[in-house]
C-alpha cells in the first residue's frame, strides 16, 4: 500500500464513494486504523480493513452491505468478543502411562464439545441483548471463538459489561473496543466455515 490508500466508503445521497487516507503512508495496520478513526470523526463511513480496496464491480456487488455499514456507523460501534477455552485439570496432567494419556485425550475431546456448546450459548445470549444490531463470527479454532458485535453506541458499554459476565467454567471472555465497524462493511470471506 502507498500513501492515499482506501480506508472506507461513504454513502451520500444514495451514492457510494471511496474515502482515502490523507497524507502519510498507510502501509502499517496501526496507521491505517488511526486514519480510519480520524475519518470517522469527520463523517460516517463503512470502514475498510487494512489492505482492502473495493473495485468498481465491488461497489455494485456489495452496495447493500456498504450502504448499511455506512448508515450504521452514525451511531453504532464494533465490540470484539473473544471466547477462549480454559482447559480443566484433567486436560493438563503429566502422568505418562497409557491410561492417563487416554483419560486426558477423552477429557480434551469432551472439553471441545463443552467449550463449543457454552460458546454458542454465550453468542446467542449476546445476540439477544438490546442494542445489538448484528453479530458475526471471525476466525476461530477448536479452542477459540472470535465474535464481532455491531452495537448501538449508547448501549455498547452495558453490552460489554453484560457480555463479560457471561464467562463460565471452561470459557474465558475478553471484550475489546469500541472499534470501527470493520467486520460489517463487506461480506465475510468465503473461506469462513
Amino acid at each position, binding site marked *: 500500500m502507498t500513501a492515499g490508500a482506501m480506508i472506507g466508503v461513504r454513502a451520500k445521497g444514495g451514492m457510494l464513494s471511496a474515502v482515502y487516507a490523507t497524507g502519510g503512508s498507510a502501509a502499517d495496520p496501526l496507521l491505517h486504523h488511526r486514519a480510519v478513526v480520524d475519518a470517522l470523526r469527520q463523517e460516517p463511513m463503512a470502514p475498510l*480493513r487494512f489492505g482492502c480496496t473495493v473495485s468498481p464491480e465491488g461497489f455494485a456487488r456489495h452496495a447493500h452491505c456498504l450502504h448499511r455499514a455506512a448508515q450504521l456507523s452514525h451511531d453504532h460501534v464494533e465490540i470484539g468478543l473473544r471466547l477462549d477455552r480454559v482447559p480443566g485439570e484433567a486436560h493438563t496432567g503429566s502422568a505418562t502411562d497409557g491410561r492417563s494419556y487416554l483419560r486426558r485425550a477423552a477429557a480434551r475431546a469432551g472439553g471441545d464439545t463443552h467449550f463449543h456448546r457454552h460458546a454458542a450459548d454465550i453468542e446467542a445470549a449476546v445476540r439477544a441483548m438490546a442494542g445489538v444490531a448484528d453479530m458475526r463470527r*471471525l476466525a476461530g479454532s477448536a479452542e477459540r471463538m472470535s465474535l464481532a458485535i455491531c452495537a448501538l453506541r449508547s448501549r455498547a458499554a452495558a453490552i460489554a459489561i453484560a457480555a463479560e459476565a457471561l464467562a463460565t467454567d471452561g470459557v474465558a471472555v475478553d471484550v475489546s473496543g*469500541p472499534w470501527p465497524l470493520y467486520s460489517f462493511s463487506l461480506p465475510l470471506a468465503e473461506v469462513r466455515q
Partner: protein
Amino acid sequence: MSYRPEIDFAIPNPADDQSLIHLLDRLLDQGVVVSGDLRISVAGVDLLFVGLKLLLASVDTADRYRVAAHSSEAA
C-alpha cells in the same frame, strides 16, 4: 476487559500486545495481499527492482488456509 467506554474508538498502544492483537484480529481476519514495488537506486539510477506480493493474515486465518490447502491437495 479491554473495552474502553470513555473513548470514541480504541487506539492500541504499540507496547500493549493484547489490544494490538484485538485490533489485528479485526484488520487482518480474512488475510490481505499487499502489493508494492521496491526500487533501490543510487544517484537516480535504478540498481534493483523488486516486486512484492505479501500475504498478511491473522494466525487463525493462516491456519485455516493451511488446512484448506492440505485438503485440496489430498482430494
